[in-house]
């Protein structure tokens, strides 16, 4: 059998006509173009952002059988265990299946919700998100959160209605769009074996750093903890939080920030690596601290400290460094996206998380150690007593002690301004 019969040469296959390959190329381009048009055509149909909640009984019956996907940061093994082993079974009793979706950053959940909004979906895959200030504000900008449900939760009656931490989230009005979950306090942590006589103010800490070169550093903004440190320092160089307006004001920024950048620039040569580089995030700083490269670290979630010391990640002599002028405090919340299809189930779970029993279980340092958002004076007597009987953590002082003199947070508009200012005025200048 000749070669020519069974194996046509490539020349025979390549037809001179462009007709044969044109159709599918154009078809492909058209399909892709069509998809693109579909993507960027008119904005998504408005979802029921402000659909009024029926009676609680209606919500509970609608929630039965629903599956709720809770998107939360997965880096805290105690938190994961609490949701999987304590909260989820409790939700099951109410007929709701709670699924935890671990994410590296809440922004991933936010991006998913925004994409779903752009696509006009109402049966989205995000039902409940553990959010904090800046993500909440960003989401409000994009219409990502469902509103008009939080104040109707039965367990809201145990919270103080005028608690500033619960009515405004990083300066953005909560406005019935999210339900509170934990309270947190920005905390400096030090190794008492290395620092025998710790300073008692933030200015004192920076002076200590000047005297001990290479033993202190802070995470680079835009990391959440690093940004909080910058804000705390802004309060300190401005002579107290009363001197810094909560809402971003260009005049105030221009007046107050130069002192901040100057102090950080003066501090830089005494920092780890001479201030030429900074840990990428709080995890990197914690690693430096654990490896004995620096003597201080910082966190906005002191609940994790107990477990870190218990497992030996942090040295045993780790202690919380209280500042006389107080530190930033805030609350974190659970928000329901406007694209969620299981909103009723999500509300039931949020209500459950707010219940005195769950807040108490969560506050146990052996379980999670997250501070409660409830007002102790509004709790029934047995619950109040149970809270008081919680074991103490060897590392973290109780919340009333830790939050003494708590400073309010600035509005979230300050955050990107300070982050960018830090990059321009401190990081780039020290190179």
């Amino acid at each position, binding site marked *: *059998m000749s070669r020519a019969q069974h194996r046509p040469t490539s020349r025979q296959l390549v037809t001179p006509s462009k007709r044969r390959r044109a159709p599918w190329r154009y078809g492909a381009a058209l399909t892709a173009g069509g998809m693109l048009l*579909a993507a960027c055509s008119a904005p998504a149909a408005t979802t029921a952002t402000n659909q009024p909640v029926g009676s609680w009984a209606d919500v509970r019956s609608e929630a039965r059988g629903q599956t709720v996907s809770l998107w939360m*940061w997965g880096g805290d093994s105690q938190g994961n265990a609490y949701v999987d082993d304590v909260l989820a079974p409790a939700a099951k009793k109410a007929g709701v299946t709670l699924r935890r979706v671990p994410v590296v950053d809440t922004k991933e959940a936010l991006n998913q919700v925004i*994409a779903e909004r752009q696509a006009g*979906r109402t049966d989205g*895959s995000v039902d409940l998100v553990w959010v904090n200030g800046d993500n909440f504000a960003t989401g409000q900008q994009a219409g990502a959160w469902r509103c008009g449900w939080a104040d109707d939760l039965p367990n809201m009656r145990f919270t103080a209605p005028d608690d500033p931490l619960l009515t405004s989230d990083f300066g953005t009005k909560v406005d019935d769009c999210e339900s509170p979950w934990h309270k947190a306090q920005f905390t400096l942590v030090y190794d008492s074996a290395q620092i025998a006589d710790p300073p008692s103010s933030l200015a004192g800490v920076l002076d200590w750093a000047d005297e001990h070169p290479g033993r202190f550093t802070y995470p680079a903004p835009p990391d959440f903890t690093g940004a909080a440190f910058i804000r705390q320092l802004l309060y300190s160089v401005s002579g107290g939080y009363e001197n810094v307006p909560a809402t971003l004001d260009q005049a105030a920024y221009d007046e107050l920030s130069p002192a901040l950048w100057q102090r950080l620039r003066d501090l830089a040569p005494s920092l780890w690596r001479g201030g030429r580089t900074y840990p990428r995030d*709080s995890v990197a700083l914690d690693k430096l*601290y*654990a*490896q004995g490269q620096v003597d201080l670290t910082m966190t906005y979630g002191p609940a994790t400290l107990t477990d870190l010391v218990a497992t030996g990640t942090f040295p045993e002599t780790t202690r919380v460094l209280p500042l006389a002028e107080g530190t930033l405090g805030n609350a974190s919340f659970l928000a329901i996206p406007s694209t969620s299809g299981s909103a009723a189930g999500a509300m039931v779970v949020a209500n459950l998380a707010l219940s005195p029993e769950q807040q108490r279980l969560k506050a146990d340092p052996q379980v999670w150690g997250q501070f409660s958002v409830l007002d102790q004076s509004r709790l029934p007597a047995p619950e109040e007593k149970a809270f008081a009987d919680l074991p103490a953590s060897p590392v973290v002082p109780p919340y009333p002690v830790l939050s003494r003199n708590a400073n309010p947070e600035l509005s979230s508009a300050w955050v990107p301004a300070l982050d960018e200012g830090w990059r321009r005025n401190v990081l780039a200048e020290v190179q």
Partner: protein
Amino acid sequence: MTRTRRALGLLLVFLLLAWFLTPLLPLALWAGAESWSGTSSLPQRWGAGNLTSVYASDGGAAVLRSLALGTAVAVLATPAGAVAARALALRQVRGPRLIAALLFAPVALPVFAVVMGLNVVLLRLHVPGFLGITLVLVVTALPYTTFLMRAAYAAYDVAFEDEARTLGASPGAVRWRVRLPLLSPALAGAAFLAFLVGWSDYIVTLLLGGGRYVTLPILVASAASGTGNEPTVAALSLVALVPPALLLVSLGLLRRRLNPRRSGSARRSDPAVSPLPLVEGAA
């Protein structure tokens, strides 16, 4: 081989061993460590608790999901890449340069940007998560499979096929008994790479899966984002190494079955040395 040459060869192998294994050492040590302070050279306490806790948490289900994804990508991307490579190598299509550039393009794309745009389109079309992830990952794997096979075709002599045909083999026999065994190492490599694209992908699974598809890399990434989770990350990573290793072993066994004359020393049975036995082997 002289003694110095053999010694140099041994030294090279030893250096390569050190090069590949050293970065894996921290992982191996952490996987077996129950407690390791940041300042000591070795863990204070050893234990197998980390590995068992992987299965206690969602680890087992995540492994199965990753397996499904990896297999789907391998099954789709390997033949597609092989066929495209053959068409390019034998110049059977018009505009090979454009097609080659197109098939190479996915490597040059920043994944998160592309996926964000695609996510909206897929959501609007109500495409199920698994399908969307598989489509994007197959496209991501295509450069690897296509160009691995393209390079293999550059070292491949099509004369073997011609010779088999002149000796009377049917096109099917040519394909299955000549082309496939000769290309089997490259095909195995391509399938392995495609499987890995699906197995170890994080960002596409996260963004297009809508949280419903929690695979092993998602567990690893979320564990790595917290302090003090090195044992979990290490245990998960070690668990993540096992199925690809098993896959490579099984691919090797499959190759040996397809082409038994190539087992053992490659020298003896290499067709480049002695093409005649091929006819008997083709029966």
